[in-house]
């Protein structure tokens, strides 16, 4: 698997502790969560006013996505045909390495030395920036969040808010260092001023780059277009100013018609940022035609598998419905305790806990499907009704089936199930356990260290009642 060599997902547990102790990160996360949750709730609550109802819209979106996945090859062929008719080139990539090869090849053919980029998670899957730099082509991220983390030499920690893990103070320090302007030229925490500063730097890049690289929120089969949703307008700069535009996107991102796209757009921005519609929605179709004032001379679509085709027809096919809104992570108590980097690969939160094992190998991300309390807030908010806890559960089953769980865990479960199958013995053991817990408790009736679950009592006291088990009390009551 292409991603496995880069995936750090096996270190989830170790990372988690480190992230919890990071006070700066915790401050950034605590600030962000209520914003995401509150804005989405407000946008969803306003839906009926606009004549639509959330559940009905959700059903429509699920139907669109399922229709595509049911005949993915047909829709991809149609897309290829339509895109070619508009003058675009359509290429196919099996994995991340092939993405890099194809993009570098296009760049070389067109004498590209600098490429501006609008956010693309697939280029993160492929580690495209590293490959471009190694080939002598300078990649410049232009989404403000992506720009920040590129300066910091980091990876995105969220799929729609890549720098959500950073505080304003951290970004101020970074800008002061990288932009070579002393901090005093701005007042502290002046976000518009900081944005203006980044914009001034980026403007030079927009004008001088020969190639623009973007992802696509959707590909529209009937028109051969790429749909791009942004809030900063950088997507337009990247797709219209350079001579060459390369779209790198997953094969599952296709939708049949413009109408379908319009339907999905009713839920995508509302789910993601709580907006009725995002600031910029671009539909990019073909190359610059005679008489057009702008647009690229060359458009290349790179349609990527990188593990997606394997999910078709599998128990995990529903995951391919994902429209990358980030609502699952925005509502996840685990995500907002750690931030995205703890998850060890491109996709964090509940959707990442499903995608990372599937794309990088189940054996390379053993903790992730268990990194969930099962609260199902993610499933409740997912606009395309992906049963995220159910898919994580299926991955847990697969780990058991393939013998990938620790022996201690398997043994404990088997012992427990065996005991639970023998009621008389079970009662006896529970009675003994009850006495044992009482014996462990201190004078105030609390257990402060429980050898069987040290991780639990590291943060909590277990209160112990001085009484007998329920079944003892019940038996005594019946006798009385």
């Amino acid at each position, binding site marked *: 698997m292409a991603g496995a060599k880069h995936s750090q997902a096996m270190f989830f*547990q170790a990372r988690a*502790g480190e992230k*919890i102790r990071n006070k700066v990160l915790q401050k950034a996360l605590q600030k962000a969560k209520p914003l995401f949750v509150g804005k989405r709730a407000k946008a969803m609550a306003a839906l009926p006013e606009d004549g639509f109802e959330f559940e009905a819209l959700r059903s429509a979106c699920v139907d669109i996505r399922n229709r595509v996945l049911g005949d993915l090859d047909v829709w991809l062929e149609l897309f290829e045909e339509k895109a070619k008719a508009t003058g675009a080139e359509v290429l196919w990539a099996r994995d991340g390495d092939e993405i890099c090869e194809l993009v570098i090849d296009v760049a070389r053919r067109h004498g590209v030395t600098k490429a501006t980029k609008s956010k693309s998670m697939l280029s993160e899957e492929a580690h495209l920036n590293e490959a471009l730099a190694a080939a002598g082509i300078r990649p410049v991220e232009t989404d403000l969040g992506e720009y920040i983390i590129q300066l910091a030499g980091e990876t995105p920690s969220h799929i729609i808010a890549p720098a959500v893990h950073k505080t304003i103070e951290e970004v101020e320090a970074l800008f002061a260092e990288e932009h070579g302007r002393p901090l005093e030229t701005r007042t502290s925490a002046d976000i518009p001023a900081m944005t203006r500063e980044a914009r001034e730097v980026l403007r030079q890049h927009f004008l001088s780059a020969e190639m623009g690289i973007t992802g696509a929120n959707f590909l529209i089969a009937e028109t051969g277009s790429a749909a791009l949703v942004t809030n900063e307008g950088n997507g337009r700069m990247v797709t219209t100013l350079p001579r060459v535009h390369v779209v790198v996107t997953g094969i599952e991102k296709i939708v049949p018609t413009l109408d379908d796209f319009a339907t999905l757009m009713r839920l995508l921005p509302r789910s993601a940022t709580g907006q009725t519609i995002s600031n910029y929605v671009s539909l990019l179709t073909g190359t610059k035609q005679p008489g057009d004032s702008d647009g690229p001379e060359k458009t290349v679509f790179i349609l990527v598998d990188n593990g997606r085709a394997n999910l078709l027809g599998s128990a995990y096919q529903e995951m391919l419905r994902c429209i990358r809104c980030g609502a699952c992570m925005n509502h996840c*108590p*685990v995500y907002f*305790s*750690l931030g995205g980097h703890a998850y060890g690969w491109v996709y964090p939160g509940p959707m990442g806990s499903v995608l990372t094992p599937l794309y990088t190998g189940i054996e390379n991300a053993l903790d992730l*499907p*268990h*990194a*969930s*309390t*099962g*609260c*199902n*807030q993610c*499933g*409740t908010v997912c606009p395309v009704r992906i049963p995220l806890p159910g898919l994580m*559960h299926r991955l*847990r*089953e*697969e*780990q*058991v089936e393939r013998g990938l*769980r620790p022996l201690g*865990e*398997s043994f404990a*479960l*088997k012992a*427990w*199930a065996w*005991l*639970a*199958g023998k*009621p008389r013995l079970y009662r006896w053991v*529970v009675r003994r*356990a009850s006495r044992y*817990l009482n014996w462990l408790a201190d004078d105030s009736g*609390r257990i402060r260290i429980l050898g069987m*679950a*040290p*991780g*639990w*009592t*590291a*943060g*909590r006291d*277990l*209160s*112990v*009642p001085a*009484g*007998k*088990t*329920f*079944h*003892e*009390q*019940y038996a005594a*009551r019946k006798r009385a």
Partner: protein
Amino acid sequence: MRLALYVTCLVDLIRPSVGMASLRLLEAAGCEVIVPESQTCCGQPAWSAGNRPLAAELAKKAISELEGYDYVVIPSGSCTDQVRNVYPQLLADDPLWAPRAQQLAARTFELTTFLVDILKVELPPADFAGSVTYHDSCKGLRGLGIKRQPRELLLKVRGLSLDEMADCEECCGFGGAFSVKFGDISTQIVDRKCESIAKVGAAAVVGGDLGCLINIEGRLRRRGDETTRVLHIAEVLAGEES
């Protein structure tokens, strides 16, 4: 009406008073309550660990013990979710067990849902001096739609005032084995719950799932909160002497 009370393993071991309170509530409502003697565990730990064969074994055992009653009542949203939503799915491919699982699922109810939606009887009024705040447990809330029922019941308790905390639907971080495997993440999550509880300043936090309650109480005490009581709703409804 003859019903089986299914007492969860946590209630049996850690807080038997929840089982006794449930028993008294149901009897006071005029039900003939039987606690099947061979009951042990609903199999949820095996299921959430991904061990389907073990979970199926325990599901079959529970079905054999619990079928044949008019209703099965469980003072826990998560164990009820296991019987109602997981058993039919777990045994769906077994022609012998699938219908039995479905029949049991249809007759199994969480305690507050049963009292409010099925029995619809007036319970003898209980007393509670002070304000409480209610924590909505995830499995009950999102798996079974338990939200209104416990609140309706609490509001009938004399002397009790209900003060909702912020994010009452937010997970407390228990998640069964999750809180043991990822103790530090769970602590981080339950800390936020403790802060919401502290902010609302209620005398007690009340819930319908002992797992969440043990988790919340454990963290409150470790943080030094010695006064906020943590109670199962059955204990509140049946009076404090249960």
